[in-house]
Each structure stands twice: as structure tokens, then as C-alpha cells.
């Protein structure tokens, strides 16, 4: 690949990635991109030629652009479809993330040293807890919270509490 081909390839890539959203030099990018796509079947030499033609003649470039517009619209429709599917997947993912965040919130708040309401269950003790016996019972104290170990089912967890 020579330098021009790299340039065209990069532009096609950029155009593919940013189609519709890319404003500066939109004409040049789309024109060349389309020319490359049209000429792709014949090989990169024809793309090179199309590129040269486009550069040489504004009119030719405009014609190529017209031709490209149809192909682009088609591509755009495909892309919108893909985006819709992606958005749906993203929404699902966001939902899962939200649930995860909610679960992690207590843990984070505890780690950040924020006092938690009594009875908050965390999987792990926040870092830097110190064993603190109160009234003959062993607690862990950190971030303004007293924690006591408990079994949730057969899993050992920690719950915030107020020592008596």
C-alpha cells in the first residue's frame, strides 16, 4: 500500500465509523469513501484513480457524490437498524449495571467511610477495620460503623449494628 491508499483507507474507516455524525470535511470524506467503495471490487488501483479524478475535477467529484448518496442512504438505514439493536442491548446492560450498582452501593459507601443504617449487610469488611470489643462481643469498627459477622444462609457476611 502506498501513502495515498493508506489515506483513503483511513478515510473510509473514519467515514464508516462516523457516518452521519462527522461534519467537517464531510463532502470530501464521503465522496472519497464512496468512490473507494464503488471501486473496491475492481481493486485499490481504481480507487486511487477515482480519488485522483475527484481531486482533479469538482464536477466529477459531485457526480460521484450523487451516486454515493444512494449507497450511503442504504448504508445509513442498515446502520440505524444496527444502532437500534445496539441501543436495546445497551438498555439491557444498563439495567443489569444499575442492579449491580445498587448492590455495590452499600459496599462503596462503607469503603468511603460513610456511616450506614444499622442492619446493612455487606459481603466484605471495608479496608482498615479494627477489632473492637464492646460488652464482651467482638465487633469490627471502621468508617463510623460497627460490624458484626453473621451467616446469611451458609455464607459469612457482615452487618452494621449498634453495640449495646
Amino acid at each position, binding site marked *: 500500500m502506498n501513502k495515498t491508499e493508506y489515506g483513503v483507507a483511513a478515510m473510509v474507516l473514519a467515514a464508516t465509523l462516523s457516518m452521519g455524525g462527522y461534519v467537517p470535511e464531510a463532502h470530501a470524506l464521503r465522496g472519497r469513501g464512496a468512490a473507494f467503495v464503488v471501486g473496491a471490487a475492481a481493486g485499490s488501483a481504481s480507487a486511487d484513480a477515482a480519488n485522483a479524478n475527484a481531486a482533479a475535477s469538482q464536477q466529477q467529484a459531485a457526480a460521484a457524490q450523487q451516486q454515493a448518496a444512494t449507497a450511503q442512504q442504504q448504508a445509513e438505514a442498515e446502520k440505524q437498524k444496527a444502532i437500534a439493536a445496539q441501543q436495546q442491548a445497551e438498555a*439491557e446492560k444498563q439495567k*443489569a449495571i444499575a*442492579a*449491580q450498582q445498587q*448492590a455495590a452501593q452499600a459496599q462503596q459507601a462503607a469503603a468511603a467511610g460513610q456511616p450506614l443504617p444499622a442492619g446493612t*449487610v455487606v459481603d466484605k469488611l471495608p479496608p482498615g477495620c479494627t477489632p473492637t470489643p464492646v460488652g464482651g462481643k*467482638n465487633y469490627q469498627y471502621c468508617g463510623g460503623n460497627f460490624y*458484626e*459477622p*453473621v*451467616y*446469611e*444462609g*451458609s455464607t*459469612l*457476611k457482615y*452487618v452494621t449494628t449498634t453495640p449495646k
Partner: protein
Amino acid sequence: MKRRTFWSTAACWALGLSGLCLGPAVSAQTPAVDPVAVQKLQRMSQFLDSLQRFSVETQSTLEDLHESGHRVDVDVTANVTVARPNRLRAMRTGGVMDQRLYYDGKTLTLFNPAEKVFATEAAPPTVEKTIDFARETIGILLPAADLLYRNAFPLLSQDLKLAVVVGKAVIGGVRCDHLLFSRPGADFQVWIAEGPKPWPHKYTVTDTSSPARLSISTLLSHWKVLPAVDDALFRFVPPKGAQQIRFLSVEPARPMPGK
């Protein structure tokens, strides 16, 4: 069940196409509940009922759904000792988990040696009732507990919509009959040793009530009939410095067949 139907069913299972293939197999002229499969299940159950004291090693894989939507397995190994009617001990050792469960006829204790914490609750008077209590009240699932019940057969065979002898399989070096049963909400498979001692060597329960169709699968090995068991084995004595903690009351665990 006709031979052809049988093999197509077996092939479907082998290919993981149960959902597609089971329909035709069930609708064949032969009954969906094969009495031979039910008899084999009953024979295993009666054999286990005849044991007074035994131990077994279990390796369970609990399929779970991660918050991300991906399936994640949890593996638990345990050595279980039962002395009927009212002694049970389960040692979950090796790997990341070191936890011991003791039932001495009066109390149930869970102990984590690494963290030096334990919790004790008053327990019902029999192994069977204590298994229920552990699951429903505390949220502790015992591996393959369904098979540890005395007189498990009526519970296992309740509401059966399908019973099939899938074929033969070798589990842990032992040639077994592979059986499949289905009831509303759950499918279960049992692999039972051929020959005069029908030990169960694998037990898989699949939750069919949710689209995820998650399973709990347990391999059972090193079955031993024990002539006598020292009572001290089931009694928990807190080591020096161990801290008593409590069980949080939790939602009842997912019910399993046999209950």
C-alpha cells in the same frame, strides 16, 4: 418405550436438544412414565433407607446467574456422614471453602474454622426434619439432600410427568443406569450403580420453572457403610477463642424435588 423412540430421546439428550425432541417422545403411544425407571428409583431409595450409618463424598456444582446475565458456577465439595435417625455432619473442606455443619440430634451448628466463628440453632429431632429446617429457616442447602431423606421415594416419585431410562453411563468409574424424571417445575436425573448395591453416583436437578433452566448437579463418591460412628463426631465443641455469631433470617431457599 419403543426402541426407536428411546434412541431418538437419548440422541436428543446427547445433543442438548431436549426442548425440541422431548415433545415427540412424550407423545408416543407408550406411557411417559416408564415403570422400569420408577422401579430403579424405588430400588435405590429402599437400599439407602436400609442403611443405618454411612458416609459419602459429594461434589456439587450450583449454576447461578451473575448480575451481568452470564452463568457462573459455584462448586462445593463436602464429606457427609449420617447416623440415623438424628446425627448428621457435613465437612466442606478443600479449595476456598472450609466450613463444617454439625447436627447432634438437638442443635445445628455451622462453623468457619478460618474465621473462628460459629452459629448454633436448636434443631428438630430427625435428620430429615433438620434438612428441611436448614433449608427453609436458615437457608442452608445440603448437597443432594433429597437422597439423604429416609423414605425419599414417595417424595421423589410425586407428580411425575415423565420417567425415562436414558441409558448407561460411567460415573466416577462406576457403571450406572441413567434415569430422567420430570415433574412440574423441575427435572431431575439420577445415575444409579448397576448391581446389588444401587448407590446413586450423580444427581442433577434442573429448575424448569424459569427460562434460565439452572441446575444443581452433585457427584457422589466413596460411599461407605459405617459399622459404628463415634457420637463425638457430630457434636460441636467451640475451639478456644471462637466467636458465636447468629444466622440472619433469610428467604426460604429454592425448593427441591423430594420436598
